[in-house]
């Protein structure tokens, strides 16, 4: 359906050649804009209606006081289903520390949360299919799990800013949200508006980049340099992802274009994860609570983990 819409606009209305680079790019762009935004509205609305989203305050109550492996398992899963604005990562970090949750577990949460969320998962299934979605989610969970454990090994407590330990969390007397069907519907609509407002630009940029890649990057060039034989494409993809920052959803159309052109699966996954979870702005925000050595370590652990994921999948693919 979306394919047909793309074809209608690109080839019938604009009279572009299907075989030309521009024609292919426009077709890709129209198709993905329609598909992704329709999926986005549906999934955000349904999620809002079900109130499946958990607030970080509730996550904290779930995780605190559990044995390490249980706490980590919950932090990773809850991180995957809890969306939070990256500007919340500082209060969230402090709140976790204050609850006595081990730092390694907190890092597991911070890794899982931007990389995996239900919106990105539904779009991934719609655009790239079940198989790749499963690979991405499993790899992401594994990175969050082991990344947190490795961080813990380095005793990151010594790099936490002193004031963080002194903060005490107050009791929140939260107002119960309106639970009637009308209230939920209103809340769901508000959520669609807010999340779309936050995402639309990232998604458009992602689709634009994907469209350009799809239309203008020659296939034989891709298979020669990005086909997976050359070991250095994976670290290159990870490095490329660090300055590039986007939302997990925005990077999906780029991955789509890369995969259809024959870029290796592992290389693509490494880039996706690096763009979504490893970003300079995010790191600078965390600088408010942890000092540079911990940040460098965090970036290093993630970079190594993404490379292992990339090489691993390129090897078995």
């Amino acid at each position, binding site marked *: 359906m979306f394919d047909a819409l793309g074809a209608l606009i690109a080839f019938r209305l604009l009279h572009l050649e299907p075989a030309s680079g521009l024609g292919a790019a426009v077709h890709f762009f129209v198709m993905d804009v329609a598909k992704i935004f329709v999926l986005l509205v549906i999934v955000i609305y349904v999620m809002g209606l079900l109130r499946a989203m958990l*607030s*970080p305050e509730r996550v904290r109550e779930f995780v605190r006081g559990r044995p390490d492996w249980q706490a980590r398992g919950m932090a990773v899963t809850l991180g995957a289903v809890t969306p939070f*604005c990256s*500007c*919340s990562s500082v*209060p969230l970090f402090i709140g976790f520390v204050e609850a006595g949750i081990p730092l390694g577990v907190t890092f597991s949460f911070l890794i899982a949360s931007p990389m995996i969320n239900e919106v990105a998962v539904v779009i991934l299934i719609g655009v790239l299919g079940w198989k790749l979605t499963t690979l991405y989610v499993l790899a992401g969970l594994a990175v969050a799990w082991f990344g947190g454990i490795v961080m813990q090994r380095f005793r990151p407590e010594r790099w936490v800013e002193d004031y963080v330990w002194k903060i005490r969390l107050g009791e*929140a*007397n939260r107002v119960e949200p309106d639970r009637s069907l009308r209230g939920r519907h209103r*809340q769901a609509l508000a959520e669609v508006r807010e999340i779309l407002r936050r995402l639309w630009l990232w998604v458009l940029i992602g689709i634009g980049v994907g469209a350009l890649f799809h239309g203008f990057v020659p296939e034989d060039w891709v298979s020669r340099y990005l086909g997976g034989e050359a070991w250095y494409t994976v670290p290159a993809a990870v490095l490329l992802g660090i300055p590039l920052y986007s939302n997990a959803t925005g990077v999906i159309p780029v991955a789509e274009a890369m995969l259809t052109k024959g870029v290796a699966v592992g290389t693509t996954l490494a880039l996706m994860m690096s763009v979504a979870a490893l970003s300079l702005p995010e790191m600078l925000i965390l600088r408010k609570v942890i000092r540079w050595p911990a940040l460098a370590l965090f970036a290093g652990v993630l970079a190594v983990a993404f490379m292992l994921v990339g090489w691993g999948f390129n090897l078995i693919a």
Partner: protein
Amino acid sequence: MKTFKVLGGGCRNCEVTARAIEQAAREAGVEIRLEKVTDMAEILGHGVMSTPGVVLDGQVIHSGGVPAPDQVRAWMQG
């Protein structure tokens, strides 16, 4: 006179929230005092971990995102 506090580390969503409250107050003709709280100790002191949060006369009435317009309007009543 209602006293509002917007809790948040100065991100865009916090700005949007503060402006929404100011505008709703103007439209309702309600006199308010609005304070933007960026100090982490105070934000967490209110028990809020996900910003932006909103405090009305000492009570946390919202947290974890930009509030919906009709929600903000409701705060001006009573």
